[in-house]
C-alpha cells in the first residue's frame, strides 16, 4: 500500500507569494495514497530536511514528493536526505513549483491550480517508482593517451605522477608534436625544444608510462572503466633493442629525396630516418613507402653498415590489445592548406610560406641553421610580409572561427625576423590583434615599439611574383584609407588552425562527437570543457579547439585530474537510470542495438544446461547505458523499459493530467 508524503516549500517568497502552498498541501492530502502533507518556508534547509526524515520514519512513508524548486537544483539534496532516513533515494520525486510555476505566472488562483496538478502528477508517478541501486562497475586503473604532443605529454606525466599507469600512443616516430618544431614560444621567447625535451625524456623514462610511438589506435570496444583497445604498432624495420642511434644508417641511405614532414617540406630526409635529433625515442624507423629495399627489393645499405645488426627488413605490424579505464584524446592540430586562396598564389609561389615553415627557417636546428633565408633562392629576405587570418574568420572557405594563436605567433615571427635581420622590414597585415593572455598585450607592444614591426590594418587582395623575383603584395591600409603595395621578398601566411588529419576517425572509434569544423565536442562548453558525451573519454589540447601551449597544458592537467578522480575508487558508481530488456518477449529484431548511441546493448544468447541455444535476445550493458530511452521507444515488441521512466510511470503521469 502506498504511503506517500508530500512536502511543499514556500522557498521564502519565491513560491509562497504566488502559490498558496497550504492549499496545495491540503489538496494533496486528499489524494489516494497520500498520508502526510505539509508546507514549510525552506524545505532544503536543515530543519526542512529534518521534517522529511522524521516523517519518513514516523509515518513509514513508501514515497516522497517535494513540491519546490526545479529538480535540477535540489533533487540530489532531497534524495540524500531520504537515503539518510532509510528510504531509497529513487523513491523521491520533485514537482517543479518554482521555475515552472510561481516564477512564470502571476495569477495566484491559476498558479495554485497548476501547482496542485503538478503535485498530483508526481504523486501518481512516485507510487510506481521502484527502489534503484547505483550500478557498480569495476575500473581498470590504466589510462590511454592518444597523441604525443605537449598536451598528451602533460596528461601522461600528470596521471603517471598520480601513481597510475599510462599508455601513450603517438602516430609519428617521435613524441613532441608541433612544439618540437617551433623555434621560440610566445610570450617569453623561450627556446621551444629546451623547455619541451626534458618532458619528453621524463615520459620515456617514467616507470608508469608505456610509450608506443609509430603506432595508432585501430579498434575500441567496451565502456568507461573497461575499454578494450587494439593498437597497431607499425613495423619500423629497426630492432630498437639493438639500435644505439649512432646514425650510420641514415648517413648511407640512398633514398635522400623525401620531403621532411618535420621540416615542413623545406628540406629532404632519407627513407631510414629519425625525425629530429632530439627525437624520443631516439631511434630511426624505415619509411616503407619510400625505402628502396622494401619497395623494390634492392639496396640494404643500412643493414650492411649497421654495426649492431639492428636492421630487420622482415619486420611486421603488431596488433597490441590493451585494457584501459579512461582515455585522453590529444590529437592536436595542423595548418589549413592555403592553396584554396588563388589570390595568394594557390600554394605555388615558393616564397609564400606558412607559420611552421617560418618556424623551421628561424630554428637553429632547421634547414637553414637559423639564418633567415627564403626557400626559392636561399637569399636573405629584406622585406617580409605577414598576413593574419588566412582562412580563419572567412566563411567563404568554410571557417568562420578565429584560430586564436595567429596574432601572437605573427607578432613573434615579426620579432624573430627583426632580431635576425636588423635592417629588414617586417610588415603585418591584420584585421584585429587578439592578445588576450597573460603578458600577451605587452608582447605585441614590444614587437611594435622595441623591434619595429609595422602593423597595417587591412586585408591583402593579391600576391604575385614579378619578373625580377619580387613578390608584389597588394593590400589596403584602412586606417589611412588608401591601398598599399609592398615589394616583398617573402610572405608568411597565418593559416587557419584545423584538427589533425584522421581526427574524425579517432573520434568515431571512441564515440566522441565533433563539430562541423572537425573539433571534438566537449560535454558542456562552459562547465565541462574536458569531458565528452562518452563517459571516460576526455579531451586535451587543440583537438578540442584552437589553443596555445599554456591552455593546452592546463587542459591536459585537468584531464589528468578527471582521470585520477575516476581511478580513485576501485569501482565506478553510476546512476541507475538504465534500460532493461524483458528477455521473455524480446524477439531480437536488434532495433535497439542499432539505435543505441553508446553501443550499450549487446546480443545475448540464452542457452540451456546442455549448451543448446534457446534464443538470442538483446541485453543492456549496465555500465554503458546512459539512460536516454531511445531503445524503449523504438522496440516493436514492447520488451524494453527504462528504470525511472517506465512506460507505466509516464502513462500514469499523462492520465493524471486529464
Amino acid at each position, binding site marked *: 500500500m502506498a504511503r506517500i508524503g508530500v512536502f511543499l516549500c514556500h522557498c521564502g517568497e519565491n513560491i509562497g507569494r504566488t502559490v498558496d502552498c497550504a492549499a496545495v498541501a491540503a489538496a494533496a492530502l486528499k489524494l489516494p495514497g497520500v498520508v502526510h502533507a505539509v508546507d514549510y518556508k525552506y524545505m532544503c534547509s536543515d530543519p526542512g530536511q529534518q521534517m522529511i526524515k522524521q516523517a519518513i520514519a514516523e509515518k513509514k512513508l513508501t514515497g516522497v514528493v517535494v513540491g519546490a524548486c526545479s529538480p535540477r537544483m535540489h533533487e540530489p539534496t532531497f534524495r540524500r536526505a531520504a537515503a539518510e532516513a532509510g528510504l531509497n533515494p529513487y523513491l523521491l520525486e520533485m514537482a517543479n513549483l518554482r*521555475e515552472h510555476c510561481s516564477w512564470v505566472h502571476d495569477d495566484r488562483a491559476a498558479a495554485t491550480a*497548476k501547482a496542485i496538478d503538478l503535485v498530483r502528477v508526481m504523486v501518481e508517478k512516485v507510487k510506481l517508482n521502484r527502489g534503484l541501486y547505483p550500478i557498480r562497475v569495476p575500473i581498470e586503473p590504466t589510462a590511454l593517451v592518444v597523441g604525443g604532443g605537449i598536451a598528451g605529454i602533460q596528461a601522461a606525466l600528470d596521471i603517471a605522477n598520480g601513481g597510475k599507469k599510462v599508455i601513450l600512443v603517438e602516430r609519428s616516430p617521435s613524441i613532441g608534436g608541433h612544439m618540437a618544431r617551433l623555434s621560440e614560444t610566445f610570450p617569453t621567447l623561450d627556446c621551444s625544444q629546451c623547455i619541451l625535451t626534458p618532458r619528453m625524456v621524463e615520459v620515456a623514462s617514467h616507470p608508469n608510462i608505456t610509450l608506443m610511438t609509430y603506432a595508432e589506435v585501430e579498434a575500441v570496444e567496451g565502456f568507461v572503466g573497461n575499454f578494450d583497445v587494439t593498437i597497431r604498432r607499425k613495423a619500423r624495420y629497426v630492432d630498437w633493442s639493438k639500435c644505439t642511434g649512432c646514425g650510420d644508417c641514415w648517413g648511407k641511405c640512398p633514398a635522400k629525396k623525401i620531403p621532411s614532414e618535420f621540416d615542413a617540406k623545406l628540406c629532404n630526409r632519407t627513407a631510414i630516418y629519425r625525425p629530429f635529433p632530439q627525437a624520443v625515442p631516439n631511434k630511426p624507423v624505415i619509411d616503407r613507402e619510400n625505402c628502396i629495399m622494401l619497395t623494390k627489393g634492392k639496396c640494404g645499405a643500412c643493414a650492411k653498415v649497421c654495426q649492431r645488426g639492428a636492421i630487420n627488413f622482415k619486420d611486421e605490424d603488431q596488433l597490441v590489445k590493451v585494457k584501459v579505464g579512461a582515455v585522453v584524446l590529444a590529437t592536436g592540430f595542423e595548418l589549413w592548406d592555403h592553396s584554396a586562396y588563388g589570390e595568394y598564389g594557390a600554394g605555388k609561389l615558393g616564397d609564400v610560406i606558412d607559420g611552421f615553415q617560418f618556424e623551421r627557417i628561424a630554428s637553429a636546428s632547421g634547414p637553414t641553421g637559423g639564418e633567415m633565408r627564403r626557400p626559392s633562392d636561399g637569399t636573405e629576405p629584406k622585406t617580409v610580409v605577414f598576413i593574419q587570418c588566412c582562412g580563419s574568420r572567412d566563411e567563404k572557405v568554410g571557417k568562420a572561427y578565429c584560430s586564436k594563436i595567429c596574432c601572437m605567433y605573427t607578432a613573434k615571427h615579426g620579432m624573430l625576423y627583426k632580431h635576425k635581420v636588423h635592417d629588414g622590414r617586417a610588415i603585418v597585415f591584420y584585421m584585429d590583434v587578439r592578445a588576450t593572455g597573460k603578458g600577451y598585450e605587452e608582447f605585441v607592444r614590444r614587437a611594435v615599439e622595441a623591434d619595429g614591426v609595422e602593423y597595417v590594418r587591412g586585408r591583402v587582395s593579391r600576391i604575385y611574383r614579378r619578373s625580377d623575383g619580387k613578390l608584389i603584395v597588394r593590400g589596403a591600409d584602412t586606417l589611412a584609407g588608401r591601398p598599399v603595395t609592398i615589394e616583398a621578398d617573402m610572405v608568411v601566411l597565418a593559416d587557419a588552425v584545423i584538427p589533425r588529419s584522421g581526427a574524425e576517425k579517432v573520434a568515431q572509434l571512441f564515440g566522441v562527437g565533433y563539430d562541423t569544423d572537425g573539433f571534438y565536442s566537449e560535454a558542456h562548453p562552459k562547465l565541462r570543457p574536458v569531458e565528452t558525451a562518452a563517459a571516460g573519454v576526455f579531451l586535451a589540447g587543440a583537438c578540442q579547439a584552437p589553443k596555445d601551449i599554456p591552455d593546452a597544458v592546463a587542459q591536459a592537467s585537468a584531464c589528468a585530474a578527471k582521470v585520477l578522480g575516476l581511478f580513485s575508487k576501485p569501482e565506478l558508481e553510476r546512476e541507475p537510470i538504465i534500460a532493461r530488456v524483458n528477455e521473455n518477449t524480446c524477439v531480437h529484431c536488434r532495433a535497439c542495438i542499432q539505435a543505441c548511441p553508446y553501443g550499450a546493448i549487446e546480443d545475448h544468447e540464452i542457452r540451456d544446461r546442455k549448451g543448446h541455444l534457446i534464443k538470442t535476445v538483446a541485453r543492456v550493458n549496465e555500465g554503458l547505458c546512459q539512460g536516454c530511452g531511445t531503445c524503449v521507444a523504438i522496440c516493436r515488441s514492447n520488451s524494453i523499459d527504462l528504470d525511472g521512466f517506465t512506460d507505466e510511470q509516464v502513462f500514469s503521469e*499523462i492520465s493524471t493530467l486529464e
Partner: protein
Amino acid sequence: MAHTETKTTETAAAGYSPRIVAFVCNWCTYAGADLAGTSRMLYPPNVRIVKLPCTGRIDPLFILKAFEGGADAVLVSGCHPGDCHYTSGNYHARRRWSIFRRLLDLTGIDERRLFFSWVSAAEGTKFAELIRDVTAKVAASGAFDPANPARRRPWK
C-alpha cells in the same frame, strides 16, 4: 523587455482554457524552461510538462494517450539537432514524428494540435515565447473532444 502574458482572460474569451501537455527532454528544453523561470518570464499557465531523459524516449502512444485524455494540444520539444545529450535521441524523435504526423490525421486528430520544437538549455526566452504562441494558437482552435474528435470547431 515587456513581459506580455496571454492569460485566462484571452482564453476565457475563447470559452475554455486549453490544456497543453508538453513532453520535453531533461537536458535542453526542461533546462530552457527552468531558465525562463529564473528569468521571470511570464507565460500562460496552461502547459503541463512531462519530463523525460530524451525526446528519443517518447513513444507515439504517449501523444495519443494525452489526446485521448482530453489534451487540446501536445508539444514535443528537445535538443537542437546535433546537440542531443545522448548524441542521437533527437534524430530518432524527428524521424518518428515526420511519419507519425501523417498517421494522426487518420485517427481524426488534427495534426496542427501537435507542435514540435527544439529549445536549448540557453533559450529561456524561446521557451516562453513558444508557450505563449502555442497557447494562443490552441485557444483559437477550439477544445479537443476525444469522444468525437471529428466534431470540433474549425480553426479560425
